């Protein structure tokens, strides 16, 4: 039987504000347990949550960047449930009136570009963190994360393959990081994803029974978990078994999803408007102000790089994968005027060095100015491409300028025709036998002469000049 896969993703992204969504506690990660908590975080009676304006602005940025419509009036609601990481007994979220709706992203996977709908984006607070005791029947609660601002991005069930799901996530992640509203760290939980997945026989209109997948903390794991789950569901259907609607946890080590062990209980969150928080009204002027402040988004930048710099789409993709990298590259291009050559050096040597040391482009010891200068030195023939390989390694190791390194190492290329001609003449004279053989038709000996010249000049001779002069002089 041929099946169609239906996937919808829910993404939670932590916003990079300094303070929490409803109080002035710090959001800094890694502080000692319960040191970033106040009466609001602790859910003390009588406290009043007050909305952080920056949270609304950041959420609006994401909404506009994903083509959403911002609702002119949105309302916070209480989502009621009991869990020890939720001191109030309810999470403040948005329900009937979210911040934004009806967005989409264009996603390219399996050679096909498709529009993936975004149902809604709303603001909410994060819960605390639980640590379970392995030896005692106890769990420990750290409320530092309680009240850290989140946006939830709810996607339409428009995704048709695990690859497309991973790609959709990469695009969302990239936009969040470009907007500088989320650090995107998946291991620390700043970017989390749950997936709803079901299958149906091709051509069938109704959706099959879906399962919800959790605990996937990388793009790769999202894809692997979905691939596993699709196979599992197909197996069940093909063997006449029923798919149970349930939440399943991805087990990375096992490479499988397992049902979450929890009491069978239908959730009833009894949402209602939070009387402590007044509605948020967003007028057109505010939307326009946020829109005007949006940076160039990755997809637009990719297209511009291809058009403006005439570099391949692949290069543009690599160079725009990170905002700081794209900016570095553009700076180099601006200074040297050689987009394709700059792309090769940035994608080749610079990224290789950085990856080896697990450093980000922000920590790159090679200043854009230095790289541009080095490209200029190659272009004007001062150093050869081969020498440049040595120079750039040194630039990375020491942070020195290319000119400084060239002088220090005496790396300047010999481009003086007269000087080189003298060297060549001496070599020809010293090798009469090879000369005779070459003239007698042993073309291969040309390489021998090139080698001799390079040896005599310690590799500093301009290779093109050596070739031209040798051909001429050997023929004479």
């Amino acid at each position, binding site marked *: 039987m041929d099946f169609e896969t239906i996937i919808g993703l829910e993404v939670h992204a932590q916003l990079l*504000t300094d303070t929490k969504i409803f109080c002035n506690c710090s959001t800094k990660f890694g502080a000692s347990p319960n040191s970033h*908590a106040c009466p609001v975080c602790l859910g003390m009676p009588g406290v009043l949550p007050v909305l952080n304006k920056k949270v609304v602005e950041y959420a609006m940025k994401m909404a506009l960047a994903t083509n959403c419509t911002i609702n002119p009036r949105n309302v916070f609601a209480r989502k009621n449930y009991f869990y*020890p990481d939720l001191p109030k007994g309810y999470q403040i979220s948005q329900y009937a009136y979210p911040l934004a709706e009806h967005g989409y992203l264009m996603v390219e996977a399996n050679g096909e570009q498709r529009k993936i709908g975004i149902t809604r984006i709303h603001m909410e607070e994060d819960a605390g963190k639980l640590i379970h005791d392995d030896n005692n*029947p106890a769990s*420990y*609660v750290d409320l530092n994360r309680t009240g850290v601002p989140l946006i939830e991005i709810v996607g339409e069930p428009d995704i048709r393959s695990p690859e497309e799901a991973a790609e959709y996530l990469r695009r969302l992640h990239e936009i969040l990081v470009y907007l500088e509203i989320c650090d995107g760290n998946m291991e620390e939980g700043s970017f989390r994803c749950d997936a709803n997945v079901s299958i149906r026989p091709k051509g069938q209109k109704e959706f099959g029974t879906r399962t919800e997948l959790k605990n996937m903390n990388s793009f790769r794991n999202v894809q692997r978990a979905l691939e596993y789950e699709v196979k599992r569901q197909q197996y069940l259907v093909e063997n006449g078994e029923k798919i149970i609607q349930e939440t399943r946890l991805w087990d990375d080590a096992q490479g499988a999803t397992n049902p979450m062990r929890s009491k069978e209980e239908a959730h009833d969150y009894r949402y209602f408007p939070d009387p402590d928080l*007044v509605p948020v009204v967003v007028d057109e002027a505010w939307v326009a102000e946020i829109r005007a402040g949006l940076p160039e988004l990755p997809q637009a930048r990719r297209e511009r790089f291809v058009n403006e710099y005439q570099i391949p789409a692949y290069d543009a993709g690599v160079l725009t994968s990170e905002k700081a990298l794209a900016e570095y590259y553009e700076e180099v291009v601006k200074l040297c005027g050689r987009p394709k050559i700059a792309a090769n050096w940035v994608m080749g040597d610079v990224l290789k060095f950085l990856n080896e040391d697990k450093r980000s482009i922000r920590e790159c010891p090679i200043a854009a100015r230095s790289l541009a200068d080095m490209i200029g030195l190659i272009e004007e023939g001062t150093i050869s491409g081969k020498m440049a390989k040595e120079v750039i390694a040194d630039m990375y190791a020491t942070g020195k300028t290319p000119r400084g390194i060239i002088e220090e190492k005496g790396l300047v290329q010999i481009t003086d025709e007269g000087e080189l001609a003298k060297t060549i003449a001496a070599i020809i004279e010293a090798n009469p036998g090879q000369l005779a053989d070459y003239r007698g038709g042993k073309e291969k000996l040309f390489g021998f002469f090139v080698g001799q010249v390079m040896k005599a000049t310690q590799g500093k001779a301009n290779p093109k000049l050596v070739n031209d002069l040798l051909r001429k002089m050997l023929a004479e």
Partner: protein
Amino acid sequence: MKLSTSDVEYVARLARLEISEAEKDKFTAQLNDILRYIDQLNELDTAGVAPMSHAIAVTNAFREDKVVESLGTQKALANAPDARGEFFRVPKVIE
């Protein structure tokens, strides 16, 4: 709208309340009284009135994104029924 005893049981379970059989009957009656009272509002014609979520007309009450010192771990834990080191301690929950 009339509540049944099972509605009361359901709400009690959601709120983690343990109630006796006698209380179930009592609360069912009381809650129905309240609902009947509130029901009087349905006599008003609200066809042209927009739904409201808040009793006051204020909107956009914001706070600047400026860090203020938190309570500190010791104070935060001061009222906890159970704590260990820098953590609140609760009966084990695991999924």
